[in-house]
């Protein structure tokens, strides 16, 4: 049997290799899954992971998908590093979309506030407000932030549902539950004509780079890392734990809100019940795949965006159900966690001891 023995120091090599091994294992398991579903595994994997690179439009779509994943993944990476488990990014994303929608729908075109930055900032603030609820409950009453942030994603989805079916509904929308289309000034400019790639890509890269610098070079990053790794050492150093919880929840909530606002003002252009908030859960995997490092999250977002576009292609080309994506993501995280244990432990083959 195989035993895990603790290593004297964490293996730097395994820390680099682990995500790659996990992706490889996911591909192998995926091939098996496709074979079980009666597909040619090679063809299915090609559609899943290579077809997104087939033409320029598809490549741009990968980047489009990666933008919200990177924004949220980078925020969650910082959050998880500090050992704060915000798993409600999907809810904060939804609130971001609602906040952006409110600004876009209700600010008149002649107002001096009728400029794109306003809905984006409104979205970020709404995401922060939503994340402030678990932050307040955790710091004031030590209520577990996992459950609260998750519960709030359901509440956010129902709030959006109510808004687009009720007070904000477009009366001339032919019965569809949706708002009016946003005015022209509230549309995110495109980066490449003929694609949907928008300037949000810059924001995602800037956020990831900025957070990486913060984590590795500043006192704020140091204290977040210390708080996450050794809470007693953080207290000894005089870092306030409550301050850290507020900081990371507002940060990740704000980035998720910004992602939601970008999504609403670029891809969708209005509010409707389905605005892609599911990405908030995918972002958890992005953060882990990126080694809880904001720059890594950028790479992780690209990997998951490829598989998301590949999944859409597979739905059309191979009639594979869209749920395969969830299976893939779950497997990827499982493999990643298993491989990560090899950073701290050395696997060794040993003879089974007699009982």
């Amino acid at each position, binding site marked *: 049997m195989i035993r895990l023995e603790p290593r004297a120091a964490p293996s730097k090599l395994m820390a680099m290799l682990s995500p790659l091994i996990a992706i490889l294992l996911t591909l192998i398991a995926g091939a098996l899954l496709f074979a079980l579903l009666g597909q040619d595994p090679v063809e299915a994997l090609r559609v899943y992971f290579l077809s997104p690179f087939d033409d320029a439009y598809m490549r741009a779509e990968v980047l489009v998908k990666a933008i919200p994943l990177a924004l949220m993944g980078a925020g969650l990476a910082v959050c998880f590093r500090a050992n704060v488990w915000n798993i409600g990014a999907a809810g904060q994303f939804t609130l971001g979309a609602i906040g952006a929608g409110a600004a876009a729908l209700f600010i008149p075109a002649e107002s001096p506030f009728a400029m794109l930055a306003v809905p984006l900032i409104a979205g970020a603030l709404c995401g922060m407000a939503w994340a402030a609820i678990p932050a307040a409950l955790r710091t004031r009453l030590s209520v577990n932030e996992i459950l609260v942030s998750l519960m709030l994603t359901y509440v956010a989805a129902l709030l959006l549902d109510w808004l687009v079916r009720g007070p904000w509904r477009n009366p001339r929308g032919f019965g569809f539950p949706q708002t009016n289309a946003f005015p022209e000034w509230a549309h995110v400019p495109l980066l490449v004509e003929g694609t949907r790639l928008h300037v949000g890509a810059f924001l995602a890269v800037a956020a990831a780079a900025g957070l990486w610098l913060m984590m590795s070079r500043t006192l704020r990053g140091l204290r977040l890392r*210390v708080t996450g*790794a050794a809470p007693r050492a953080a207290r000894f150093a005089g870092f306030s734990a409550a301050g850290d919880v507020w900081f990371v929840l507002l940060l990740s909530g704000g980035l998720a809100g910004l992602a939601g606002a970008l999504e609403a003002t670029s891809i969708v252009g209005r509010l409707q019940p389905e605005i892609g908030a599911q990405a908030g859960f995918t972002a958890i995997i992005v953060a882990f795949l990126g080694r809880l490092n904001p720059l890594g999250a950028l790479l992780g977002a690209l990997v998951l965006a490829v598989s998301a576009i590949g999944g859409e292609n597979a739905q059309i080309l191979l009639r594979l159900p869209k749920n395969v994506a969830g299976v893939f993501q779950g497997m990827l995280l499982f493999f990643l966690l298993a491989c990560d244990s090899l950073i701290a432990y050395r696997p060794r083959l040993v003879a089974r001891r007699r009982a």
Partner: protein
Amino acid sequence: MTADPSPPSFSSAVSARRPLFEARGIVKRYGSFTANDHVDLTILPGERHALLGENGAGKSTFVKMIYGALQPTEGEFFWEGEPLRLSGPAEARRLGIGMAFQHFSVFEGLSALENVALALPPEPLAALDRRVREVSGDYGLPVDPSKPVHALSVGERQRVELLRCLLQNPRLLILDEPTSVLTPQEAETLFRALEKLSAEGCAILYISHRLEEVRALCSRATILRRGKVTAEVDPRATTARALAEAMVGAEILDVKRPSGDQPRGEEILQVERLSLPADGPFGVALKEISFSLRGGEILGVAGVAGEGQNEFMDALTGERRAPEAGMIRIAGVPAGRLDPTGRRRLGAAFAPEERNGHGAVGDAPLSEALFLTRRHEAGAMGAGGWLSRFWAAGETRRIRERFDVRAAGDDPPARSLSGGNLQKFLMGREIVRAPKLLIAAQPGWGVDAGAAAAIQSALRALADQGAAVLVVSQDLDEIFALADRIAVISRGRLSEAYPAVGMTPERVGLLMGAGHSSPEAAA
């Protein structure tokens, strides 16, 4: 013993009876580190045998193998002459090997009775309850079986662990540093119980680094140093100095005893009627602690574990705030409501007992540990919270050179350093600042003799330069080696501080146990 390569001076008496237990050539390796290097040991039925050695000599590793909790890399055990291969502690218990651990293996969330039941074959709890009360009466180890363990004192918890062993009718009982958490009086009670037990035929393997205890209790001692057996002697017929030399080798150092008439500077730390409620169900409340500390002196605060030392440290460092600012004054400034950084700015420095995870982050490089306590110094940070790597690298180098911190690489993670080297680094981190006040918990805990001596002389030198030093320790030897004055913490109260010159371990022990009468009454 023919298998024994080193000449044990008292083996002739041994060979008369058949040994109960025997270890031959036991080796235990962890990677490249050898914890036990060809250890031989023989235990006779009913004898009280000591296993002596410093912290880190490999004693705990060795006895865990006897108990089946670890497996040896090489070598063999024999039980009544038959080869012994243990699959685990359960099998050891079936054979009649019982063990009481240094860090008790009790379950705080369960009752004392449930704790005992877990180690025994199934039997109705009502019947077991009667047996527990019976045995605890017989051996003078009173415990209420129905109480949850977290509501028991440290001494009572140890009794739970002992009762658990005794109810299994052991033939060999292993005790790992059992008195480290006991007052001298509680230790006496324990010794009476152990003497009764061995008179009934149960052999006892007694692990300790305290020479006096071993000389009082045991008839034979095996001495370990750095994983090897260095001697096997009759402790009653051997001087303490000879035993100590076998334990620590040639490194034995006479630490300069403080003269008692140190020049006193001005008051640097004043604590006045400091009270703090217990933090959670397992904590200890601090009650009306008052003392003051002048520059140039070292105050030693003695006390067994769990009497409020951790809470005392937390209150002094600022990890928990005092209810009122005036309760703690540092250099005359009310500091009770300040956080640790605020207190450091006033010239205080702290060194907690736990190095990994409290004084430093295990996986983080040494240079980062500097920012935990010294980021307010000039040059440590740029504008906007930017950390200066240049400053950190320079300081790291300076500390490592001055305090002889040995480790691989320029900036290794704290976890990779040995206990002594990490402690030297963390002490150095505070001492190179030349603080006005240094508060250290258990500075010599888990540290090799050489490093312990270096740390002690560094603390003394700091005091001689005019700083006030406070040392909280469970190790009386350390207290007596360092302190000018000695106070005792017990149940969250601090005794008056008495000049070290007039104190003896016995008087400290009385202060530990019986609340706080005056030393005249204690003497």
